[in-house]
């Protein structure tokens, strides 16, 4: 069964434009002008049960709007949408029992009361049987290490503590599909690692589908095999993380430390015709830019190693973060 199936999903907003100045303000009273913004522009998205998918894009690319349509909060302007077999907006009350949502920037716990009271209320809201509730809660308390926080009011928790409690709140009814909207924003490394390990565990054990939006590329590397990238409301990439790296990480960088100073022209001459570029970093340090992914480092070495004495060398892979930054800057024209 498919978790998410969207065809031509679109959301438009009317934005009122205010005219400048006092005169403009008076004119606005009588006759307001607005323009239509297409926040999400006819996206197609299919996600199978059990997948962990990263949904990324710059600020304002339409990620949050999509999530809000997928969770039934917003009504799509156009397009077909089935999530867990429901129409999220029309069948909201039945549908939301099958999903869990964590908004990194909003709390779904009750601010002024103890954490465990929030859990108890959610147990009733989702009508979780006592035995299941106890078993799930005990397990999550142990894995996420929140035993000491249960009797604290939410407002006294630190961000990392709160976020772990939010996860429990989103999973207490064991949903088939979990939406995470920037779950690790502002968290320290240990908490991040703890949360990621937990997410991998529930994905493996219960086949929970996870859709994650994030600006933290390490989240994606740790969790997701598939990436959907959004730009100006359109999907510009949908595929594996590995392919994204292969297509976009146009080669690697190799740092050399040489025994003696070598003329750049000599290096260039020996590797003529190969898709690469040499760059001088210091007297004896040079950097080799391999500009195509299928060019092997060994081929280049074979050309120079007999003539140039290499003291040290270090291969540097292009990080996913760099790739993503590059795509944001240049667009997806080459892929």
């Amino acid at each position: 069964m498919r978790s998410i199936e969207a065809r031509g999903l679109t959301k438009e907003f009317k934005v009122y434009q205010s005219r400048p100045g006092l005169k403009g303000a008076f004119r606005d009273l009588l006759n307001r002008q607005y323009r239509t913004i297409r926040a999400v522009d006819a996206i197609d998205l299919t996600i199978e049960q059990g997948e962990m998918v990263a949904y990324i894009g710059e600020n304002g690319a339409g990620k949050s709007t999509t999530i809000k349509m997928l969770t039934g909060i917003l009504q799509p302007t156009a397009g077909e949408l089935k999530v867990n077999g429901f129409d999220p907006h029309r069948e909201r009350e039945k549908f939301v029992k099958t999903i869990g949502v964590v908004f990194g920037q909003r709390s779904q716990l009750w601010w002024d009361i103890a954490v465990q009271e929030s859990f108890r209320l959610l147990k009733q809201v989702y009508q979780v049987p006592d035995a299941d509730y106890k078993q799930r809660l005990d397990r999550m308390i142990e894995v996420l290490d929140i035993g000491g926080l249960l009797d604290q009011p939410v407002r006294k928790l630190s961000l990392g503590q709160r976020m772990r409690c939010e996860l429990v709140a989103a999973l207490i009814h064991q949903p088939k599909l979990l939406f995470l909207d920037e779950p690790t924003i502002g968290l320290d490394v240990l908490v991040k690692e703890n949360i990621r390990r937990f997410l991998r565990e529930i994905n493996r054990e219960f086949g929970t589908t996870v859709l994650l939006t994030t600006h933290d590329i390490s989240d994606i590397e740790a969790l997701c095999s598939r990436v959907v990238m959004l730009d100006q409301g359109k999907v510009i990439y949908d595929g594996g993380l590995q392919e994204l790296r292969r297509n976009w990480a146009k080669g690697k960088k190799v740092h050399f430390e040489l025994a003696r100073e070598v003329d750049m022209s000599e290096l260039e001459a020996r590797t003529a015709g190969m898709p690469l570029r040499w760059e001088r970093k210091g007297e004896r340090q040079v950097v080799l830019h391999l500009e195509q992914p299928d060019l092997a480092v060994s081929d280049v070495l074979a050309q120079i190693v007999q003539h140039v004495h290499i003291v040290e060398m270090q291969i540097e892979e292009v990080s996913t973060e760099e790739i993503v930054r590059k795509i944001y800057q240049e667009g997806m024209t080459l892929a």
Partner: protein
Amino acid sequence: MLKMYLEVIRIRFLMMLAYRVNYYSGIVIYSINIGVYYFLWMSIYGDKPSLQGLTAVQMATYIAVSWMARAFYFNNLDREIAQEIRDGTVAIQLIRPYHYLIVKAFQGLGEGVFRLLLFSVPGMLVVSLVFPLDLPGLSWDWLKFACSLFLGFIINVEVNLLTGVLAFFILNNEGMIWAKRMIVDLLSGLTIPISFFPGWAQAVLSYLPFQAISYLPSMVLVKGLSGDAFWHALSVQAAWCVLLAIPVQLIWLRARKTLIVQGG
């Protein structure tokens, strides 16, 4: 389902306890109000035994009862809803498998029950020692009053939901909330019993829902309405409960369609 709503009431109870200071200041404010209205009305009465069919003692009872009733039916649901819409937390409410407004109503009930038990009942005992009141002893009148008061509560909740949900369309409806509060206090007969309004105004008010919030329940107790008069009051209230539910639901459905979540 019922368990969930009981839990909602319980949570609101806990939250009220977390904000004890609000509760104490409420006691002071209500005592002052009852005192002020008591002395004001007693000076209006002077040495006249009765005005507009209410004796001075009945008037004093009316003041005490209607303010204590207000402690039960009054809540800030409109402000809470407007706040949740403005800061976007309404999104969290929409990912839960319940009807947002019904849950809100039950939160209001939790608040009402809290104040009824910890505020109105002890307050009423104190007030009846300080001022000469004419309350019925242990009788069916209290049960009738309870029924009527509960319907008044529902009507007030519906009016509040309506005002609050309008924040979906008018993002800053603070002014409207204040206006509504004043209108409810005045037109529900809290500040001036309806029978003191001029005839034409009474005719108009009898077609508005506000008198059913406070005036009717208070009169049930103060005048000991019975028989047809009681059933008439109760059926007017019940009719308003049903009638007001319609625009609340319609506007809610419309609001969900046009919802824009503020702040990302």
